């Protein structure tokens, strides 16, 4: 039996007006407020509160210059910090989630459900509640106000583990693992050679989400870090907003900074897009 029409893309597909239109409406709904950030970042201080909300401004270049000059370019330091926290954190988080998800999906052992429920239970405790106890814990070990204090707590992602487990269940066929085992592959090979490559699109999703979540996380770094040279963008921009009772908020810098903060995320998303185009060739084995 031929497996030719696996992707089905070879056949001519009629263009669908309705699905495209509905999606575009949704896209527009999501885009509009984001486009405001773009428009507002282009307004100078004088224009921000004196012109109509979506009217374009003339101040983008001067805002960018002001932001770069602010405190001798601390904004770029903040961006580098954020890249470190988000990149490093998301990588580690994806690795831990993928391995844990695969293990929970493909192995049966006593305590499996208990462990899974416990890990998921982490979602029940919001960051607001965990922040101060985590800070006190890190202070005990003497690691407060360091890069580790922001990286470590964000590696464990209950949501990521759940996603990984679902994905491992769907994408990694038991039969394939059986075949590998019969061929004499050890657990490590099964994991690294068979399971993880099949889980790639899911892992990309987990990486992307965790990257964005850490990139935009405010509360944890706010409590953990006292040294402003280690601030991520969220906390740094916040010092511009809550400038103290006596000082004006630097709105134009905040908005320009926000715009610049979104751009790397868009770039990341565009890069990761291609992983969603892949169909699962491994599905050929599923009958």
């Amino acid at each position: 039996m031929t497996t030719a029409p696996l992707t089905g893309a070879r056949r001519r597909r009629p263009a669908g007006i309705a699905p495209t239109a509905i999606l575009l409406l949704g896209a527009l709904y999501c885009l509009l407020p984001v486009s405001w950030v773009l428009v507002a970042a282009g307004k100078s201080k004088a224009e921000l509160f004196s012109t109509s909300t979506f009217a374009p401004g003339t101040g983008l270049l001067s805002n960018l210059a002001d932001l770069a000059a602010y405190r001798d370019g601390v904004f770029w330091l903040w961006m580098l910090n954020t890249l470190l926290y988000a990149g490093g954190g998301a990588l580690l988080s994806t690795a831990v989630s993928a391995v844990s998800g695969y293990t929970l999906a493909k192995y049966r052992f006593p305590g499996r459900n208990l462990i899974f429920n416990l890990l998921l239970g982490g979602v029940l405790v919001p960051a607001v509640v965990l922040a101060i106890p985590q800070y006190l814990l890190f202070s005990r070990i003497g690691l407060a106000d360091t890069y580790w204090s922001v990286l470590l707590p964000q590696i464990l992602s209950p949501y990521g583990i759940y996603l990984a487990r679902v994905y491992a269940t769907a994408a990694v066929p038991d039969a394939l693992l059986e075949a590998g085992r019969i061929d004499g592959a050890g657990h490590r090979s099964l994991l690294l050679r068979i399971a993880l490559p099949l889980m790639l699109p899911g892992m990309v999703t987990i990486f992307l989400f965790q990257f964005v979540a850490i990139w935009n996380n405010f509360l944890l770094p706010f409590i953990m870090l006292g040294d402003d040279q280690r601030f991520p963008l969220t906390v740094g921009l916040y010092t511009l907003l809550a400038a103290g009772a006596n000082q004006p908020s630097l709105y134009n810098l905040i908005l320009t900074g926000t715009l610049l903060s979104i751009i790397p995320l868009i770039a990341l998303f565009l890069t990761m897009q291609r992983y969603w185009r892949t169909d699962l060739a491994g599905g050929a084995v599923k009958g």
Partner: protein
Amino acid sequence: MTRRPGGGVRTASAVPYLLLAPAMALFTLFMALPVAYTAYLSLRRTKVSGLGLGKGSRREVFAGLDNYAATLTDGELWAGWLRVLGYGLLVLVVMLGLALLFALLLDSAHVRLARFSRISLFLPYAVPGVAATLLWGFLYLPSLSPIRQVLDIDLLGAGTVVLSMANIAVWGGVGFNTLVLYTALRAVPRTYYEAARIDGASEIQTALRIKVPILLPAIILTTVFSIIATIQVFTEPTTLRPLTNTISSTWSPLMKVYRDAFVTGDLYSAAATSIVIAAISLVLSFGFLRVVRDRAFGEGR
């Protein structure tokens, strides 16, 4: 199809435990320990002697269940729960409904401009919270809002502020949930749909009869996570609070925790309230899961 019921390999070795060790270690250190400390704090309170200024005038003492009693009898907290309930239902239905719709549309064979739509849907999730009050201030406040040019209603008034908040939540969360469901859909081999296509099923029929049932585990768990997230609603009311008089500092239960922990410095009440919130979230979410237990994971197919 020979699939072992329950899926996976039965093993007596230590391998799964080793593989799970990093996650468990992180969990213990950064979740279990802080939660235990929070539980400990919830049984304590501060006691002042004399004027309360200067050394040694403040002590931490055992308070028994006083904090819990205060939390459970706090009318404002229960009012908060009711508000969150109404808000949560609205957000859940709209956001998850849209997420499912968009995921199915993205996965359909006829759609164009899928990549553009995908990234557009994702963008709200990428906007950092620091600009949120500014952003929604410009979009909701009377003299600045383009919506107000068309509709003459107070978007931040007592009746409408819940809708405005819900809008922020849906806007921010629909892309994330769409992508989760979409990723799950992409994991399904196209062969599944071949049979249906050969039988002449339309795209919509394929979607409803085949894709949705396959997606059910993902939908259910996304719902559970969204339930938990909505119970813990904090960002949206906090974002709008500086702009209007209609949101108090205890509008949602988690805001009360934040107020106690970060504003009024009463870490002990905050701890007790957090435990109560976690307990209620646990009951609601796992209760929901129990109801739909068999569909939650496809392994038992």
